[in-house]
């Protein structure tokens, strides 16, 4: 029950050393996450999912526990977005331990940079509150992201909703609400 967080150098410098290959594959439906650090005051950790490009922002400090706190932060963002609680519970229960690794996808790295730019612009324009990281994550989740297809509405939220629907449809073992 592991998930992999691929961190930038800034992130790894603060959170821990990356594991050597071969890495265990993530046991979650969403797969790997990418992590970076924003030097806001207070410092913020930004995570972006490889499969859906979903962003999750959360306080970095204390940096040693950021990976342990991440599943709860993710669940809070997903709950605010109205994602099916069965999917959220399944994902968080599969995220019992995290493996750190180096970044491997430029596409995700690029999207993460775009999110940072958009978040800072939204704060400067007073569209979002820098203290409300959940609100900021939710806002970013509904912005257009280059690599996301038209079928997913070009947004991370659209990509996540489609993945959740496909997962729930595919697995008959899900308890019905």
């Amino acid at each position, binding site marked *: 029950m592991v998930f992999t967080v691929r961190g*930038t150098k800034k992130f790894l410098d603060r959170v821990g050393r990356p594991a050597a290959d071969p890495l265990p594959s993530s046991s979650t439906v969403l797969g790997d996450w990418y992590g970076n650090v924003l030097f806001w005051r207070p410092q913020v950790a930004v995570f972006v999912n490889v499969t859906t490009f979903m962003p999750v922002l959360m306080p970095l400090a204390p940096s040693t526990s950021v990976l342990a706190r991440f599943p709860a932060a993710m669940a809070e963002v997903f709950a605010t977005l109205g994602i099916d609680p069965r999917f959220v519970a399944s994902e968080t229960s599969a995220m019992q331990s995290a493996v750190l690794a180096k970044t491997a996808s430029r*596409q995700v790295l*690029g999207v993460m940079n775009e999110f940072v730019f958009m978040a800072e612009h939204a704060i400067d324009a007073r569209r979002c509150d820098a203290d409300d990281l959940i609100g900021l994550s939710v806002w970013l989740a509904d912005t257009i992201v280059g690599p996301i297809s038209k079928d997913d509405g070009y947004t991370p939220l659209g990509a996540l909703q489609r993945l959740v629907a496909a997962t729930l449809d595919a697995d008959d073992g899900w308890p019905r609400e």
Partner: protein
Amino acid sequence: MQLAAIVRSASAHRVGSGVTTAVRCTKRPGRRPCDGFVMVFGRTNGEIAWSCDVCGDEGVITGWRGSWADVSGLDDGYVVGDELTVMLSREVFDAIRGVLLLDAACELVVARAQGTSAGVLLAGRVGAFEELIGYVAAESNVESDRRRVRRLDEACTVLEATLGHR
């Protein structure tokens, strides 16, 4: 745009210093593109004197302070890491120079780039290059011109190799 590129480069260097920038000469002597780079010198009276290191085309720019191309006010003091240099081909550097979304440190790395006979030399701290990879990758994500995407990917590959990522 050429004058703006010259101002961007010259304003990234100290006044009173001369440097061969990575700005390419746009002259076409004998109907062939000039192969030179633009040299700049920031005069103490605020003027920027520039000339091509091959064809000798030259000029003086005044009134540039405070323009959007003026990067003299940018501060990259927050960047951490050792100093390092990266050599890129002219074509790859041109792709990076077209990236509009850069933070102050990356903006200064690009503006301070120097033209050499072997290509374009970028110098900066590790932290700035780490950020630059992200910005170049972001540009690549939204670029529709396949040739430019290739150049941007090539830039990422060189930067990652320099930083020991791969």
